């Protein structure tokens, strides 16, 4: 397996590449440029980087204003503040007028680690997917994160991107990799059950699938980077084949990928669904790895939860 890299690093690197290609790209941060990695862009393009200070609500509004005059603003903060604190600004100043603002939210989920529950946003996907017209993406590795940023810049309209703090393995390094907003990918074929995963949990799902194989269970794994609009066709096709669906996400099981998948299946092809994620609880301090283990979101945890359910 290739080296591990955090998707927030990928975000910073992708922004720099984007800045070289597109002079309309501007980046805003709220005093977290070193952590969100927008500092990489700042160093390359100091005239197109704006530190808004610790004032996320205003930052989102400033981005909206910049979008109305033709800029492509990427606004960054931790997911807790970008999606949480500034939710209503995102909803009313960006979503309602459907402005071309890209939100790069880092430090999502429990892999924030040691900072603890106050900074571990497990609710951002749920919040963002309720906004009409908002694209919601959660890339699984470095390759996908970069593709996601490039696609967001090409797309006209509001986009929310979720990046992680902790380094994660590269899983999409194959020659036929192709990224498209709204398209999921079957990353492992199987016939007994389907694991639909997003973000760091795609890696966990692949590990779990390997363990299940040893038990004689053939698991199909689908990587869903775009949670909205959801690739319903791909998920339903797989559900028809396997008859059982597990969802895996580093996010609350309320309102996130699991809920989105259930919405799609309920409407067209109901099958039993096991939602793996944060089970309506807050996180806590600890290393990212220790937390993923405790909340059973790593490979072993996903495997154990599936075995228990089957």
């Amino acid at each position, binding site marked *: 397996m290739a080296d591990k890299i955090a998707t927030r690093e990928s975000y910073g690197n992708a922004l720099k590449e984007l800045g070289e290609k597109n002079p309309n790209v501007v980046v805003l941060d709220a005093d977290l440029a070193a952590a969100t990695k927008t500092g990489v862009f700042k160093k390359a393009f100091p005239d197109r980087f704006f530190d808004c200070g610790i004032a996320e609500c*205003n930052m989102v509004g400033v981005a909206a204003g910049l979008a109305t005059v033709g800029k492509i603003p990427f606004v960054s903060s931790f997911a807790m503040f970008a999606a949480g604190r500034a939710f209503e600004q995102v909803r009313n100043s960006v979503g309602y*007028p459907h402005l071309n603002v890209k939100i790069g939210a880092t430090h999502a989920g429990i892999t924030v680690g040691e900072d603890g529950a106050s900074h571990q946003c497990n609710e951002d996907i749920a919040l963002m997917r309720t906004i009409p017209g908002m694209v919601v993406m959660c890339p699984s590795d470095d390759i996908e994160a970069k593709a996601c940023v490039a696609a967001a810049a090409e797309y006209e309209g509001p986009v929310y991107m979720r990046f992680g703090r902790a380094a994660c393995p590269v899983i999409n390094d194959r020659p036929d990799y192709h990224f498209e907003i709204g398209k999921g990918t079957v990353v492992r074929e199987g016939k007994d059950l389907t694991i639909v995963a997003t973000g760091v949990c795609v890696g966990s799902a692949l590990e779990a699938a390997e363990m299940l194989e040893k038990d004689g269970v053939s698991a199909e794994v689908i990587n869903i980077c775009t949670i909205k609009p959801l690739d319903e066709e791909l998920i339903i096709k797989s559900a028809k084949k396997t008859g059982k669906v597990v969802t895996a996400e580093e996010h609350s099981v309320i309102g996130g990928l699991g809920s989105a998948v259930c919405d799609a299946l309920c409407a067209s092809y109901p099958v039993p669904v096991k939602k793996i994620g944060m089970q309506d609880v807050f996180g806590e301090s600890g290393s990212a790895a220790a937390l993923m283990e405790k909340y059973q979101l790593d490979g072993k945890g996903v495997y154990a939860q599936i075995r228990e359910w089957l």
Partner: protein
Amino acid sequence: MNNLELKKTANQVRKGIVTAVHAAKAGHPGGSLSAADIYTYLYFEEMKVDPKNPDDPDRDRFVLSKGHTAPGLYSTLANRGYFPVEDLLTLRKLGSHLQGHPCMQHLPGVDMSSGSLGQGVSAAVGMALGGKIDNKAFRVYTLLGDGEIEEGQVWEAAMFAGAKKLDNLTVIVDNNGLQIDGPVAEVNDPNPIDKKFEAFNFHVINVDAHDFDAIRAAFKEARETKGMPTAIIAHSLKGKGVSFMEGQVGWHGKAPNDEEYEIAMKDLAKIDEELAKEEA
């Protein structure tokens, strides 16, 4: 436009406000009327805008941060030629481009959707920043309520605008002294407003919001101020022009009934007569 023409136009704007809110049976007349002279001056004298080309990238921008006073903006836009004045009768009705609060996707000429207080000013700051990035000459104006400035986001935006020295931005506070629950001084006293903006590195001008000489001088001063944004504190009378609405908090967000509408229109007709005498 000379002052007399401005006064006559502002009275037309006021009639449109009263007519729209009466037809809608809902809306916010008080703060629309208090700002009618400011709206008129902005759209008929100050701003470089063309109703025939509302998307001109080089136009001046206006963001109605106190979005609930949309009837004031709509009446001004209609009288300026952005859309027919008769459309004001569709305010707040299903299918109308005149939404309860301004929506840029529904109505050409609206530079930013607004209504959730405290948010418009941030967008205006973003527009001004965008102008600076590209060395554009356009100016950005935003109108806030004196109750609205109780929102914390207003001061986040003010801090940023001051820090970034956005001298292409003019913030106007419609200081009519009343908000829904009562006098602003009693609800959550935002005073002194001028000193607050000064402390946030704004050039501040206090002005009588119904004196076109003073308004003219203030906007000129704002245009000539370099290196810092300007805040114009416009001391106004809520409900200005309609006898029974003037200074009455109850007319913040209530529509006149048919009888009240007749009185209001008579009040405004009387102003027209006085202005005609002044002209003669």
